[in-house]
């Protein structure tokens, strides 16, 4: 069985992430794939390079899995994030949430992607036609309860 969390330079296989969570008691699996887009803020993107603080990034993913289990005990969650060079259309992150209850599976996977953007030490170096730039999003602070509550709110039910 694949691990629930992973930071890897290898191409992500969504089916493998689903295999990490789904059991015979689950009626619903929701997956989220983050894909490299060909544009961003008006720039024509050619490719991305993701850099990670691997050891801490893996712990941050584990933390998100633990947080989600607190909110949605029925859900099993897996998150695999890729690093290195990614071409347009490739998956940078795959999240899978399995549950007997589809509402929980939807909520947990949405929560996970919001939290990833908040607290996982990974950085996107964007290469576009005419240049390149580091994307800088959130100041990572796992103890920021306001950020966590925001992610919880976006997850809905």
């Amino acid at each position: 069985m694949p691990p629930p969390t992973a930071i890897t330079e290898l191409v992500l296989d969504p089916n493998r992430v689903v295999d990490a969570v789904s059991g015979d008691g689950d009626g619903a699996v929701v997956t989220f794939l983050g894909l490299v887009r060909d544009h961003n803020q008006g720039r024509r993107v050619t490719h991305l390079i993701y850099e990670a603080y691997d050891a801490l990034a893996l712990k941050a993913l584990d933390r998100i899995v633990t947080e989600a289990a607190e909110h949605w005990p029925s859900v099993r969650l897996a998150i695999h994030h890729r690093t290195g060079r990614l071409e347009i259309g490739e998956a940078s992150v795959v999240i899978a949430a399995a549950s007997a209850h589809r509402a929980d599976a939807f909520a947990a996977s949405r929560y996970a992607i919001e939290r990833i953007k908040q607290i996982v030490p990974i950085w996107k170096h964007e290469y576009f036609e005419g240049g390149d730039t580091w994307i800088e999003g959130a100041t990572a602070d796992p103890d920021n309860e306001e950020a966590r509550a925001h992610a919880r709110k976006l997850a809905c039910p």
Partner: protein
Amino acid sequence: MPVTIRLFARLREVAGTGELTRELPADATVAGLWDQMVRDYPAMAAYQPSLSCAVNAEYARFKSPIADGDEIAFLPPVSGG
């Protein structure tokens, strides 16, 4: 005491390397080490308001003390996903 410093993304580029070593006094804190980084690399100052830090691959506070052999990481705003 010797410590290792890990830098990522833009900070890594500013320093020209992702890993440094420094000799620190016994009562050093993460904040003190960061001040030293800014002295060495003034371009890093812009990151002060949005910076995170980690000690031995665990998120930490800037007031955290540093121990002999610790790995201290300075993290610009993240953009995973």
